[in-house]
């Protein structure tokens, strides 16, 4: 995972297999970065993600809730077709924004 902070927006770029173990290892780092920058917006980029399961959905929902507390917004970016199918099942787009492209690292 890479991240960058520009003008109130915190970008996270995930890559490879975002499985249960990987999410477990990244979770606290993401929580702390959001805590540190208190961003107005967080963008989660899944362009380079080759595998994701419900653990990833749980992670996104939890960051959404974390941001709600400080009034920040969360945007999901660049899901592959397969990853999109999975996110759709959860109804997550009823509460969160989705965008393709955007700023790349």
């Amino acid at each position, binding site marked *: 995972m890479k991240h960058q902070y520009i003008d109130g927006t915190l970008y996270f770029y995930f890559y490879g297999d975002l*499985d249960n173990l990987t999410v*477990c290892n990244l979770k606290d780092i993401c929580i702390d970065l959001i805590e540190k920058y208190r961003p107005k917006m967080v963008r989660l980029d899944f362009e380079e993600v080759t*595998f994701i*399961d419900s*653990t990833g959905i*749980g*992670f996104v*929902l939890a960051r959404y809730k974390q941001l709600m507390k400080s009034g920040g917004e969360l945007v999901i970016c660049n899901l592959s077709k397969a990853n999109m199918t999975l996110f759709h099942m*959860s109804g997550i787009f009823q509460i969160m924004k989705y965008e393709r492209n955007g700023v790349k690292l």
Partner: protein
Amino acid sequence: MNKMRLMFTSKLENEAFARTSVVAFLMPINPSVDEIMEIKTMVAEAVVNCMIHGYDGKEEGDIQLDVQYDENRMITIQIQDYGCGIENIDLAMQPLYTTKEHLERSGMGLTIMSTFADDFQITSTLERGTTVLIKKQLHVESEEEK
């Protein structure tokens, strides 16, 4: 008919081993890219459930994984733990229902499995464990694929 069985410990790193092993075993029958993705996801969901729920994160339980396929390209995957079991399966099957929200679970695992499977069954006995049975019919191979 061809089959294989794996028995592994409920250590988190074994989930990647489980899903890639299933796909490796199925390679001779050429699943499509989409089918591989769905199979990997179903195995991951089932195995993570055994680890997180069945054994409550304790990394010393046994998980048994059975895979077989027949001449009609029907795949059967069975994943079993000997953990705590599920009290109410109908409730557990509800989308977004989870008993581990504090661990950032979303409650989508069983929904994802039953969506991707052609047949999905789950049986459970409290204090004895849980078994999920997944059936998936692979696409008919075209002449070029063979």
